[in-house]
């Protein structure tokens, strides 16, 4: 890739990862994505739950109706109570760990900011979320800039470490970036009708992809999402490693990827000579399940990007994995899809 192209890719990543959008509050990130894809899609709409759905191409001889899903929501916090002194208690939106909360900074959808503190505990004890609070700088409930029900995301700037990239919401904005970049590479010759779904509310139970897939009614589907890696000191025993290429999901805790889709992805990676790795994840779930469970059932899989420190404010991915994932996804969508025998 040329220097200039690199820069635009990094700019896009920075823009998307720094836009807040906790589950249910995707309006800003949706607008940001919409701006990026303008001009590349034949049709763009927002559905009843807030999924952004962009169609590219229409079905030609031998083509398929394909859904690609990258979720644009991220984990966050919601205020449950503001006490007399202005401290805001909160509940997690999606899988937030108390490990990553203490001392962290948050930004509310209304622009208010705050830091997270916790009650005094015995040394060495890990707090539960309800022993923590957000300090917005308010001195009383009256002057609190936030109230019950207000939502914030974590605030952390994008960090470029060269080969490795770090941000608070690589999960799953890096997939949105991959989908957007692949969308730009879809050729007129593609026989497929491709729906790029930038889905909402994935972190709270794949809700957006569920309704989006019903509307799109695809013949085959691919989720794009991050996955855990096994390459950190005394970490999980997982096969996927940063920098070893896009990961082809065989299963996670939410679904068994369709073997035909797995094969299709492996064949495409091999045809392009791209590095790839097989992924078997014993926890977690992705939009792939939501697509699979649509109507009479849809063959579905997932293109994963290995990521360290998922659901922390410093999720790390590998730049080569990102670029190879874009190539893999574009290749999958540009060619006639041979799913093979059941």
């Amino acid at each position, binding site marked *: 890739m040329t220097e200039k192209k690199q820069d635009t890719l990094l700019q896009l990543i920075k823009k998307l990862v720094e836009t807040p959008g906790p*589950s*249910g*509050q995707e*309006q800003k990130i949706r607008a940001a994505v919409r701006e990026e894809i303008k001009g590349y899609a034949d049709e763009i709409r*927002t*559905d*009843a*739950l*807030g*999924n952004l759905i962009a169609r590219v191409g229409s079905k030609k001889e031998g083509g398929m109706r394909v859904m690609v899903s990258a979720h644009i929501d991220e984990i966050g916090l*919601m*205020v*449950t*109570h503001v*006490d007399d002194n202005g401290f805001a*208690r909160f*509940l997690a*939106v999606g899988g937030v760990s108390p490990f990553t909360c203490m001392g962290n900074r948050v930004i509310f959808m209304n622009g208010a900011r705050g830091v997270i503190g916790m009650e005094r505990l015995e040394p060495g004890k890990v707090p539960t979320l*309800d022993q923590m609070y957000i300090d917005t700088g308010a001195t009383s409930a009256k002057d609190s800039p936030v*109230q*019950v*029900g207000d939502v914030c995301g974590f605030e952390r700037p994008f960090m470029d470490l060269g080969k490795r990239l770090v941000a608070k919401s690589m999960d799953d904005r890096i997939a949105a970036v991959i989908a957007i970049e692949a969308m730009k590479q879809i050729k007129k010759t593609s026989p497929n009708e491709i729906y790029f779904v930038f889905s909402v*509310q994935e972190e*709270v139970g794949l*809700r*957006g992809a*569920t*309704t*989006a897939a*019903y*509307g799109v009614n695809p013949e085959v589907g691919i989720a794009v999402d991050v996955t855990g890696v096994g390459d950190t000191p005394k970490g999980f025993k997982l096969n996927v490693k940063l920098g070893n290429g896009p990961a082809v999901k065989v299963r996670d805790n939410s679904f068994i990827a369709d073997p035909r889709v797995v094969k299709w992805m492996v064949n495409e990676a091999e045809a392009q000579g791209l590095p790839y790795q097989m992924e078997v994840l014993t926890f977690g779930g992705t939009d792939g399940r939501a697509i699979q469970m649509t109507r009479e059932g849809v063959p579905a899989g997932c293109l994963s990007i290995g990521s360290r420190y998922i659901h922390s404010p410093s999720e790390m991915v590998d730049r080569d994995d990102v670029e190879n994932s874009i190539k893999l996804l574009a290749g999958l969508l540009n060619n006639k899809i041979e799913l093979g025998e059941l």
Partner: protein
Amino acid sequence: MAKTLETPKTFKPKMGKKELELLSKLTDALGVSGDEQEIRQIVMDELEGIADEMRVDHLGNLLVTKLGKGEKRLRVMVAAHMDEVGFMLIKDEGKGIFEFRVVGGIDPRQLVGKQVIVGRDHVPGIIGAKAIHLTTPEERKQTLPVTQLRIDLGPGGSAKAKPGDRATFATKLQVMGPTLCAKALDNRLGVYNLIQLVKNAPENIDLLAAFTVQEEVGLRGAKVAAFSFNPDIGIAIDSTPAFDLPHYDGEENTLYRTHLDGGPAIYVMDGATIADRRLVDWLVDTAKAENIPWQFRQPAPGGTDAGAIHRVREGVPSVSVSVPGRYAHSAAGMARIDDELNTLRLLHAALARLDENILLRQE
């Protein structure tokens, strides 16, 4: 902008003798998940001749349509689950003593020493426990599991009930000053409110009233009801816990969920749904405009029928409103009459000012 519709001035909910009679009929009836017939029958009798269409679907949901007038009416599904948590007899051990299992979420510590009713005939029974004199100090430290408890109908009771019958607490509704005390206020208050909404339906919408089944075992009824109705908007009306009790060591209670006397509880997020913000704002704005007290239900786990409704087909913008109530899923809960009436007022006023513009707002 379409004109803002006025709330019909004629609708002033009250809790008089007639209303209390209907409410107590609902709370005192037996309607354990999977066996909601008693409730369904009460609702059908109440709405006979009022609804435009009334049918029972394959799961036992009672689906009632009340059409409005005029153009471009929104199809608004309002769901209230009819079922309650309870028990099923599973084995007759002879002489009127039955082994049973719990249906839905009941803390087993709520069971011992309670009176129950069994089956459609409401055969009276009791759940006893070993006399304290006969227990060891060690035993008294253990929670009695459901598998060790029995429902006793008295000798000869084996002829009056059979395994497979459902049972529930025997509590009858009573009014305690400003408070209603009954079993199954979760969710007969919602059922009561939905009956009143159908009887006083605003004409600007098509009201799709779903009296749903099997909410307590996983929102099953609402899922298929929403698929059938295919609505523009979904509203679950339910009862939600008020944990507004003192903390054991006097600390501030920050996990109250809702407060009695706080008015209808509007949901922002629970374990099953993130409410549609446009609908949250609509409810809050209505409450403010109509001077109805209201509160946010603290975001917390738990779920309502909205959890199923909003995920149906291409998605349905949804929200929930609950009457706050203490001690749900036990033999007797408590709710304020004022909260009940204000919930009904809010729902009615909000529905009456609903028009298609609500869904046009993009965020």
